[in-house]
Every structure is written in structure tokens, then in C-alpha cells.
């Protein structure tokens, strides 16, 4: 302690920062290169899988993989917002099923309705679900986990009640509706275009609009945000509405892609979405999260889901592997955070 005190007194400014730079913890490097590291890991994984099964890195398979990941990545954007505000949303699988079921029934009863209108309808249903949920969390102040657990049951139950337990299957849907999820534009699936579009909007929204920055502010310190004139309740509510809208839209896309709507559509899908966010570096403690990380996280999960059958790993391992990834990512985040905090302490003048 004594020597450092003297050192900081004697040393000119430039040299001092130089000396402190040498003392950085490994974690601070990890934070800086987190996305790169994840990308590197994905590439490594791809090479390993390719060595086991050469059909992995073919155009068809990669196209399939990204198409299958598109819905996951759309939902991950919404979940990122929710987790940044220190919340969690377990109801998205049920919202997705509800909006998917209603739009599938609309399509089967009124085949002349334009698919884009159905997409709007599904998004609207999601917005309503999210609005109700947001009201419970933001205005009444129920813990997000409790509120979303409860609403998950309500939405799932509604899905069964509306459909009377029946499925809406492929032959009841119009070709134009199925084209929404399976058709291509410039050889690339519509789902991928939609996901790209959403990522572009989200990039602008999170980085360059006032509301987007307010979401980060509310997440990192709600009290400070309130004092600086942000209304945290409004921001929180908005976040759940966006999440609901995205899952409603994903519901329509899901039904259109798989050409079937069931009562148990996407049950447990929320866990994959949370996994994608956490792997992508979104901190459960709130306030931290990047779109690039979330996208990479979604792709990593997509690769794992796609590649397990290719390298002859039984599908029953999938759940365990996914859980382990979540746990490892969460623990890594925590350890890195500790290192960063220690780094800040070290750089502070004593």
C-alpha cells in the first residue's frame, strides 16, 4: 500500500495509467472480447462437428439451421429487454401458442384473409397478453417470475379452451399462409428476412432512441433512473408489451412454418430463449446486454439443437446439455463480473 501511494504521487500521469493497465484482471479482457470469444467458440464447435459429420457445413444444412434459429432469435431480442430490466418472462411459450392457435383457427375458418393480416392479428394478441402481464409487473409490482408463471398457465389454458383440445393441421391451412413461413425471397427464407429486419430495428431502438437507452438505465439502477426523471413503471410495462408482441408474431410464424397448431406448441421454449440470452452475455442482474451477443447465443443454441442428431447424440441429451450451457454461462458471467469489479477497485487511486 505504502509503495503504491508514493508511486502514484511521483509518477507522471501517462506512466501511471501504463502501470495500472498491466494490473488488469483476465476478466476485464473477457468482457472486452466476449462476443469474439463466443464467435470463436461457435467456429470451433462447427469445425469439430464437421469433422464428425461432413454434411454439417453444406448450404442446405446451414440454411435449415438458420431458418430454425430465426424464431428463437426473434424471441431472444424481446427476452433481452426483459432481462435487462431485471425481469424474466416464462410465459412466452404460452403466448406463442395462444396467438398461433387463434391465427391458425382464423385461417382455417376464413381462408380468404391475407396472411399479413393474420400476422398482424397474432402480433396484436401478443401485445394484449404482454400488456396485461406488464400491468401486473410494472403497475402492481408483482415479482416477474410469479406473474409470468401465473399468466403462463392462464394463456396455456386459454389455448386449450379455445381449440377444445383439437389441433389445426396442415390441410386446414391455405397455401398462401404456409408460404409465410416456408417461402423464400432471393433463395433465403422469409423467417430469416423477418429476423434480420427485427434485429435492425432493435439495433436502432436500443442504441439510438431515448426509450431504448432508458431501458438500460432502468435495468442498471431503477432508483437512479427515477430520480433522473425516467418513469420506471412505464419502461417496464413497455418491455413486457414488446416481448408479448414479438412472441405473438413468432406464434404466427411458428404455426405457418410447422403447418400445425397444437395446445402444447412451444411448451418449454422459453427456456431455450433464456438460454440464448444468458449465453449471449445478458446479465441477470440487469442493465447489461448486447444484441450481437444475443444473436450469437441464439446461433450457438441453434447449432447444438441441429447438430446433436448429426453426430449421433440421442435427442434425450438435448435438455441436459441445454441446462448445462445455461448454468455454465450464468456462472461464467458471475465470475467475470467479480473480476471486473476487482479490476475497478485496483484502478482506483488509493
Amino acid at each position, binding site marked *: 500500500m505504502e509503495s503504491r501511494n508514493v508511486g502514484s504521487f511521483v509518477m507522471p500521469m501517462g506512466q501511471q495509467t501504463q502501470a495500472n493497465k498491466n494490473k488488469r484482471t483476465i476478466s476485464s479482457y473477457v468482457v472486452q472480447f466476449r462476443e469474439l470469444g463466443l464467435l470463436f467458440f461457435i467456429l470451433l464447435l462447427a469445425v469439430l462437428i464437421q469433422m464428425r459429420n461432413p454434411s454439417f457445413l453444406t448450404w442446405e444444412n446451414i440454411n435449415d439451421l438458420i431458418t430454425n434459429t430465426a424464431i428463437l432469435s426473434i424471441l431472444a431480442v424481446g427476452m433481452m429487454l426483459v432481462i435487462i430490466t431485471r425481469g424474466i418472462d416464462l410465459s412466452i411459450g404460452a403466448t406463442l401458442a395462444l396467438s398461433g392457435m387463434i391465427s391458425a383457427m382464423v385461417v382455417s375458418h376464413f381462408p380468404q384473409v391475407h396472411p399479413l393480416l393474420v400476422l398482424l392479428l397474432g402480433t396484436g394478441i401478443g401485445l394484449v397478453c404482454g400488456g396485461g402481464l406488464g400491468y401486473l409487473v410494472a403497475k402492481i409490482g408483482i415479482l416477474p417470475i410469479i*406473474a409470468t408463471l*401465473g399468466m403462463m398457465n392462464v394463456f396455456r*389454458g386459454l389455448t386449450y*379452451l379455445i381449440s377444445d383440445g383439437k389441433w389445426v393441421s396442415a390441410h386446414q391451412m391455405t397455401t398462401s399462409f404456409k408460404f409465410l413461413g416456408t417461402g423464400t425471397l432471393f433463395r433465403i427464407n422469409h423467417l430469416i428476412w423477418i429476423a434480420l429486419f427485427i434485429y435492425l430495428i432493435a439495433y436502432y431502438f436500443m442504441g439510438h432512441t431515448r426509450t431504448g437507452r432508458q431501458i438500460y438505465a432502468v435495468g442498471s439502477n431503477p432508483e437512479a433512473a427515477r430520480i433522473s426523471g425516467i418513469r420506471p413503471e412505464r419502461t417496464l410495462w413497455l418491455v413486457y408489451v414488446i416481448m408479448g408482441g414479438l412472441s405473438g408474431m413468432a406464434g404466427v410464424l411458428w404455426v405457418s412454418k410447422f403447418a400445425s397448431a397444437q395446445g402444447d406448441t412451444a411448451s418449454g421454449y422459453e427456456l431455450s430463449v433464456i438460454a440464448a440470452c444468458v449465453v449471449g452475455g445478458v446479465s441477470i442482474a440487469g442493465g447489461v446486454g448486447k444484441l450481437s451477443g444475443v444473436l450469437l447465443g441464439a446461433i450457438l443454441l441453434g447449432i447444438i439443437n441441429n447438430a446433436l442428431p448429426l453426430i449421433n447424440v440421442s435427442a434425450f441429451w438435448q435438455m441436459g446439455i441445454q441446462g448445462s450451457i445455461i448454468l455454465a454461462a450464468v456462472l461464467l458471467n458471475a465470475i467475470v463480473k467479480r473480476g471486473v469489479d476487482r479490476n475497478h477497485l485496483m484502478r482506483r487511486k488509493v
Partner: protein
Amino acid sequence: MIEPRVLAHKLDFSWKRFFLQWEWMLVIIFIAINVMNINLSEYYWDYDNLRDAMMGFLDKSFIVLPMVLIMILGDIDISVGSIVALSAVIMADLYTMGVPMVLAMLICLAAGIVCGWINGMLIVKYKELSSVIVTLATMIIYRGIAYVILEDQAAGGFPEWFSFLGWGYVGPIPFILLAFVCFAILFYLLLHKTVLGRQIYAIGNNANASRYSGVKVDRIKIFVFVLAGFMAAVTGLFLTARMGSTRPNIATGYELEVIAMVVLGGISTAGGKGRMIGAIIAIFLIGFLRYGLGLINVQAQMLLIIIGLLLIAAVMVPKLKIKRTQKLRKT
């Protein structure tokens, strides 16, 4: 000159406060549900039917007891349903491999304890992580291991005496009810009559203050999560005995029902508040509601909605009350 505030050691007993407790509210709802059910169906108020219904819903009530402790600590455990499945699957798999049943049952309980211990250790070692995300991850992992062990098969063929756990009677009383009453008394004593119980309340109110006053916060947290794992394994035993076989997908969604019962029982989600007796009443309240609605052929999905709404209503009512008093204070 300001007089120092003197706190009484014990609150004076007042009838008003006694009857304004949440538990009385639950008793009233409970009676109302029973009256409603008796009017809805003539088969409801029948000892044999009630007894059989009780045997049906009491299995998950074992998890409610430790969940009360966890939520008073201010934490939550959503991995319990998966622990039920994993411990039951391990037991069934060992038994089909030729391990004696008694040993397999002991290993089942041990598996539950290990699962709970892992939860507790993770939560204590990584304090910056909330228990929500830790148990969410272990929930997927435990269920995943259960799938790896048994894939999509069912394992069964247990000895005759094992089904006694799920179907047996001691005199006119079902064995499962007897076991539940024993555990309920034990947990009641643990929470309300021991030092440990008081310390759990203290941690739930202010973990830092309790640590500075010498409460071993970490050790107590781990112990409570181990208890939850153990009771989940007990549930696994009873559930398997009742169904006669087990699958990796048993007990899905139990965590929701258990949390609903605990919250309905008046235990605050913020920690530090609530009593064992409320949760116990809530178990029977939801159980009888479900049984009564089942008698008049209400769909299972409708029940899902009702339980979800009950859960939200139960957390909403106290919040709204707080909001109103805050508003009154401001004006």
C-alpha cells in the same frame, strides 16, 4: 427532548388483529368452496370420496412445506418438480437393475438431498445470481438427466408392499395423509418453535443484518434447500407408488402449483413474512377446489387457468393494500 422509543417484547393480544389475519380469510374461502361444492354435486360430501381425493392431491403437498421456508428466506426454488422426476427415475432404474427396493428408496432420498445441496451451494457461492436463474438452470439439468437415464420409457414393476405408500390405509386414514400430518407438524415446529426458524425469518427480513448479528446465513440456506430436495424425493416416492411406474416427465408443472399454494397461504414473495399454517390451509383449499370442479366435469385446462389466476390474485391483494396505504400517507 425526544423520548426514546420503547419496543415491547410481545405485541399485546387484540381480537381485532387476531381475526384480521390472512389465515382466517383462507378459512372463510375454504368454507365457501366447500359450501359451493356441496351444492354443485351430491357426491362431494362423502367421506370415501373426500379421502380418495385427498390421496390424489397430497403428494405435492410435501414440497409445499420446505417451499414455505425457502420463500420466507426470500428465495425461490423452481427445480423441485424436476427433482421429483429425477429421484423417482433413479430409484426405478436401480430397482430394474436388481438393487433391493429398500436400498433403491434410500438412494432416491439421497439423490433428492444431493440435488438440493447443489442448488443451495450454487446460490450461496454465487450470491450475485438470483435463486430464480440458478434453479431454472438446475431444473432443466435435473429433468435432462432423468431423460438421459430413462429416455422415453416407463419403469415399474415394483414389489407389492411399495404400493402401500400410495394406496395404503392405517385404519380408516390414508397412509399418505398420516405421513403428511407428521411432516407438517415437524415443519411447523421447525419454523415457529426453534431458533433456526426465527433465524430464517431474520434472514428473510434482512440477510446482511442477520449475518452481522451472527446468524450463519449460508449454512441455513444450504440446509433449507437440502430440505426441499429431500421432500421432493419423498414426493417422488409417494407419486411413484401411486402411479405404479415412473417416467421422466412426471411432476411437470409441480413447481407452479407448489408456489401457488405457498403464495396463497400468505407467504410474502419478498421474504420474511408468512406462516406455516396458511400454506397448509392453502393446500387443502386448492385440493378441494380441484376435486369439486373435477366432479362437475370442469376441464383440466380450466383448472390451469383458475390456479394461475388464484396465484396472481393472491400476490395482488396485499400489494394493492400497500399501495393504498402509501397513497393515504402521501395525501
